[in-house]
Every structure is written in structure tokens, then in C-alpha cells.
């Protein structure tokens, strides 16, 4: 049955001497919540909420809640699978060394099982309870983030976050599809805004964290092409971003309030990107990139919040008018 050598080895094994010491997890619920990347999830939920609210027609609040919950859990699943695959990189970077896998709280197989379970339930629940256009788009988003971005692009090309940014830009599209069962120009515009926002945002971060990325061997643009080339790319992408973010107003998709807000915020974003381009040495350079990074978060939040407010004001205005005329 066994070759001679194998039989010999088996015969000398003292089974009583084998000490089974399986790893028993001490991971707390908080460790699993950390795997979901709650801060990224909050931005996903917010942008998805905007996609859902600006969609035309009536969407039942229970179905709206279900859609947002599924998109949030799907985003969390992507985060967990990303961390499961990137444990080696995370351990080398100060920004990510405190994550549950580098700290040894959760093993990569545990995180993988957790992520796959959440991905399965989020996609199936969205598909069954809402519609399969949204369910399919959510599945594609998770696939794109985990397989295309995390496994293929991130360690291979400096364009990782440019292409991979598509995954982060899809949540409002998924939400729109959940509300309408189809796609149209408005969610694609939201997609484009987030897509072109991603490179200046992450390259600003990569500029002041380039040592981290270099240590981990991640080919971010400042590591591969140098900080000056990155500064130029940030400026170019910011110009495109400001134009793309402004376009929906003249094209007639969003109102004037949005257009003016987009112009004001865009001017701020552009000024900070120019500052990053000009200041290349010392503390002033670091301060400029940190300012751009922080403002870029505010920029996206304020832009989407304006769209949200427009819809709310439009919905509430007739009621306020009716009350005012009744009093008058």
C-alpha cells in the first residue's frame, strides 16, 4: 500500500506524542467589524444613498433600507477579502499595521470565509428582495475590487488606483439600479465624478505615505514615477475632475445650486492641487499634500450632499408653500 520509506516513517510515529494545538480564535466582534473597513463603508453608504434618493419614482422605504444595507455589507465583504489577501502588505505599512490580520487577531482564511459569506448574502439578498440588475452590479463591484484591483492591479501597476477606482465609484450606480431596475445618465455621471476623484485623493495620500508603500513594495505612482510626476498627474486629474463634476449642470441633469457648488468646490480643489504641484520640498510640500487629501474628502461629501439637499428641498418646498399659503 505504502512505499517502504513511507511505511517506515509511519511505523515510528508515536501518535500519543503528537500534540494537537489548533489555533483557537480570540477575535472579538470588533475585530470583524474592523475587517469591514467602516470608514470606507460610510462613504460607500453615503454615495449610494445619494444615488438612491435622486433616482426617479417612488421607492418603498423598506426596499430602500434593504438596498443600502446590502450595498454596505457588500462593501464590507470587499474590505474583508481585500485585507485577507493583503495581510503581508498591511503588516509592513504603519497606516495598516493595526488591522486585525497583521495583529494576529484574525487569520487570512477566517477573513476570507467571513468576506465570502457576506458577499454571498449581500448579493443574493439584493437580487432576491430588490432586483437582479442591482444584485448583478453589486456582485460585479465586489469582484472588481477583490480580483481586478486587489489581486491583479495593486501589486502590478502604478495605475492600480486609477482602474481600481471604478469599484469605489459603482455604489451610487448599484443604488440607482436598485431603485429603478435600470441605468441612465445620472448614475453614470456620479460614477465618473468618483472615478476621477479617486486618483488625486489617493495619490495625495501616497505622496506623504510613499515610504510606507515603498517598504511594502506596492508600486504606487510616487514610488514608481517619483513625487514630481505624481504632482503633475494629480493636477491633470483634478482639472478633469472639476470639469466632469461641473458638466451635469450645463448638460441639464442637475440644478443650478449643484452647478455653483461644484464650481466653488472645484476652485478650492484646483487651488490645492496647484499648491501641491508648486511646493515640492520640505514641510510645506507635506502640508500641501495633506491639505489636498483632507479637502478631497470634503469636496466629494459636499458635492453629493448638495444633490441630496436639492432633492429634499424640492420634496419639502410644496408642503412649506401650502402651509405658508394656509397661514397667509
Amino acid at each position, binding site marked *: 500500500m505504502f512505499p517502504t520509506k513511507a511505511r517506515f516513517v509511519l511505523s515510528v510515529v508515536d501518535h500519543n506524542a503528537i500534540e494537537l494545538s489548533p489555533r483557537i480564535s*480570540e477575535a472579538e466582534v470588533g475585530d470583524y467589524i474592523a475587517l469591514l473597513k467602516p470608514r470606507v463603508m460610510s462613504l460607500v453608504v453615503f454615495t449610494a444613498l445619494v444615488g438612491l434618493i435622486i433616482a426617479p419614482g417612488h421607492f418603498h422605504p*423598506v426596499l430602500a433600507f434593504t438596498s443600502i444595507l446590502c450595498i454596505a455589507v457588500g462593501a464590507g465583504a470587499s474590505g474583508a477579502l481585500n485585507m485577507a489577501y493583503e495581510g503581508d502588505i498591511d503588516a509592513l505599512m504603519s497606516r495598516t499595521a493595526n488591522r486585525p490580520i497583521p495583529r494576529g487577531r484574525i487569520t487570512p482564511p477566517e477573513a476570507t470565509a467571513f468576506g465570502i459569506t457576506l458577499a454571498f448574502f449581500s448579493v443574493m439578498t439584493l437580487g432576491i428582495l430588490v432586483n437582479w440588475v442591482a444584485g448583478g452590479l453589486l456582485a460585479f463591484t465586489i469582484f472588481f475590487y477583490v480580483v481586478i484591483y486587489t489581486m491583479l492591479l495593486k501589486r502590478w501597476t502604478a495605475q492600480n488606483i486609477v482602474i481600481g477606482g471604478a469599484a469605489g465609484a459603482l455604489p451610487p450606480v448599484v443604488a440607482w439600479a436598485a431603485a429603478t431596475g435600470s441605468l441612465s445618465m445620472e448614475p453614470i455621471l456620479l460614477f465618473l465624478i468618483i472615478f476621477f476623484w479617486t486618483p488625486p485623493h489617493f495619490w495625495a495620500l501616497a505622496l506623504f505615505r510613499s515610504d510606507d508603500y515603498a517598504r511594502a513594495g506596492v508600486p504606487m505612482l510616487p514610488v514608481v514615477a517619483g513625487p514630481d510626476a505624481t504632482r503633475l498627474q494629480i493636477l491633470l486629474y483634478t482639472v478633469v475632475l472639476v470639469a466632469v463634476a461641473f458638466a451635469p449642470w450645463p448638460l441639464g441633469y442637475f440644478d443650478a445650486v449643484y452647478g455653483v457648488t461644484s464650481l466653488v468646490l472645484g476652485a478650492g480643489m484646483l487651488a490645492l492641487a496647484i499648491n501641491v504641484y508648486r511646493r515640492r520640498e520640505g514641510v510645506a510640500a507635506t502640508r500641501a499634500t495633506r491639505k489636498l487629501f483632507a479637502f478631497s474628502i470634503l469636496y466629494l461629501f459636499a458635492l453629493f450632499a448638495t444633490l441630496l439637499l436639492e432633492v429634499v428641498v424640492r420634496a419639502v418646498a410644496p408642503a412649506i408653500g401650502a402651509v405658508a399659503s394656509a397661514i397667509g
Partner: protein
Amino acid sequence: MDEKRMPDGIVLTEAQKRSRRHRSIAIALALGVLVVLFFAVTLVKGPAVLVRPM
């Protein structure tokens, strides 16, 4: 009988028992939310719960 003999199998520490209990409660809550969600959507959609655009 030797009373100091270790029992067979794996003996969990208090920390391991506590974290396992917390994880079990979290899984139970998540499953509970899923059940309530399906129930609520069934009420909202009525008999047409399985009729949805492809």
C-alpha cells in the same frame, strides 16, 4: 485516579470562551436581522415578492 490529569480534547481559556460567545451572539443577531428583513419585504411586496425585474 490522578486528579491532576488534563482532560481529553481542547480546553478553552476564559478569553476564548468569552470571545466565542460574543461572536455567536453577533451571528445570531445578523441572522435575526436577515429573517426580519425578508419578513418585512414579504409584507411590503405581498404575493408579488418573487416578481421582480430581471
